[in-house]
């Protein structure tokens, strides 16, 4: 066990999972993750590039992936927005990119789960609530990416990046992944069997090309299989729960804590914590809402996951938003709402049918 901040633990976990390439560009709170990769990858026989911009970072990772290497990139808010074109097309190129979205709050749920880029693509989104889970998810991410040949995004935040915990990064054993016979090494150049890694759906001349239409349909069909097989969710105290709270990531850990405390006080409240944001645990939410009187959604943003919750509940119970925008003065997404007290107050108000207390205001700039 070593005291590590989340950024370091994630970098260590990535390396333990065989990640050998990383490229990034500084932006708070992503910067430290990049720094840890920069320090540790060369020591582990890998490469970390201080890319000159986010666009270049994602391009470099694309290239590394095309050789079959496990590779990752990441950023924050603005930087990830710049990478959206590439994310969309990397999905079409079926490359197993791992993306660290060290977000400022939870305002990037739509971008992460609906694809901020063009097209019908989706990426698997894992939302760890704390460092322990981040260590697990990071390794899982590389496994899922290779299994499905599709990008996997880890949704982190300022807390996950900077909180320090005593952790052990133990490599996780996963079932084998499909062989990467598509990976390029130049060896088939000139043999008539050369390969192409492309988002366009065309193979080399002489081999049957699916063409764009079939390619897009095949990607969507794969996404439907992922939807069926890869949903992950944690629930608690749902039996007889009158009020169900849905929350994810570190705020989900706060909610879990509060709900446990309220249960101890005898309040019939339960929670659903989506672990994969895409595919979203619609069934779990539906089941949880079945006997409930109300569903509350807590997000540190204006309310985005609530769409998915509503799609899961589908009218079975009223769905209310109990989160809100809350941030420090720098916009890093660590505001006064992210605290046990106000969360408790909002959950209780919902539970008792009282009006929600007003959102607390950030008073300090840090």
């Amino acid at each position: 066990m070593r005291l590590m901040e989340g950024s370091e633990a994630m970098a260590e976990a990535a390396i333990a999972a065989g990640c050998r390439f990383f490229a990034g560009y500084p932006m708070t709170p992503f910067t430290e993750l990049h720094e840890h990769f920069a320090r540790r990858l060369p020591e582990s026989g890998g490469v970390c590039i201080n890319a000159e911009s986010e666009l270049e970072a994602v391009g470099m990772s694309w290239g590394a992936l095309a050789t079959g290497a496990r590779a990752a990139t990441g950023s924050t808010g603005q930087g990830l927005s710049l990478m959206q074109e590439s994310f969309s097309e990397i999905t079409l190129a079926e490359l197993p990119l791992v993306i660290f979205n060290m977000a400022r709050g939870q305002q990037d749920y739509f971008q992460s789960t609906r694809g901020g880029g063009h097209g019908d693509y989706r990426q698997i989104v894992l939302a760890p609530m704390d460092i322990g889970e981040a260590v697990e998810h990071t390794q899982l991410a590389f496994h899922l990416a290779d299994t499905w040949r599709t990008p996997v995004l880890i949704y982190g935040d300022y807390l996950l990046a900077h909180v320090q915990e005593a952790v052990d990064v133990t490599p996780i054993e996963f079932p084998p992944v499909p062989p990467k016979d598509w990976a390029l090494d130049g060896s088939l150049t000139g043999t008539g069997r050369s390969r192409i890694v492309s988002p366009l759906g065309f193979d080399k001349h002489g081999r049957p090309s699916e063409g764009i239409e079939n390619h897009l349909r095949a990607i969507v069909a794969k996404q439907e299989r992922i939807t069926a097989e890869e949903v992950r969710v944690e629930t608690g105290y749902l039996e007889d729960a009158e009020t169900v709270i849905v929350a994810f990531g570190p705020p989900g850990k706060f909610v879990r804590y509060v709900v446990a405390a309220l249960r101890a006080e005898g309040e019939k409240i339960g929670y659903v914590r989506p672990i994969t944001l895409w595919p979203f645990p619609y069934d779990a939410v539906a089941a949880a809402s079945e006997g409930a009187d109300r569903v509350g959604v807590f997000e540190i943003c204006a309310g985005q996951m609530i769409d998915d919750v509503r799609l899961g509940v589908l009218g079975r119970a009223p769905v209310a938003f109990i989160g809100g925008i809350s941030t420090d003065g720098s916009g890093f997404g660590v505001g006064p709402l992210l605290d046990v007290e106000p969360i408790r107050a909002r959950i209780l108000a919902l539970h008792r049918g009282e009006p929600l207390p007003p959102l607390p205001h950030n008073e300090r700039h840090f």
Partner: protein
Amino acid sequence: MSEQELLLTGIGGQGVQLCAQVLARGAVIEGKHVMLFGVYGGAMRGMNTDATLVVGDGPLLSPPLLSHTGSAIGMHDKFWRPLAPKLRDGALVLLNDDTFDTPVDPNRYRVLRVPATERASELGHALGGSMVMAGAYAAASGIVGIDALLAGMRESVPSYRTQHIEANERMLRDGFEWATSQGVPA
């Protein structure tokens, strides 16, 4: 609650983050579960710098930002106001006597005024108050013994600052002994 919470506050330059690191690493060395979160205003001297620390014997349930705390270290009172309401009744509160003027109710909390800066100055390190404080807190709270504390400090000091290790050690011991001699406030 088997999880022990600590809130630290001060102003930039006082060593608050180092103090938290030393306590945290010490606790890890003793096999404890530890969670630490530092919030600081960047390079600016005189700006607020806070940290929260949770220590427990098993996996921690507490989230990293504390609504309430069972103990606190106040190195400076400049940014104390918004934090004061977080103290649980009976919280252990260690204050740096030299730079913390705001009164803290000794009837409600277990307050220990530590002459940290003064003792550090006497040891020849005017800026070392936070180490004295760490020692004092370790003793008063019992979250970590002196050996692990010293080892934790050694891990916390970056390679280009190793020349400070010895002085830090002296200050940690000083604080630890001072607090032990005082007894935990009731």
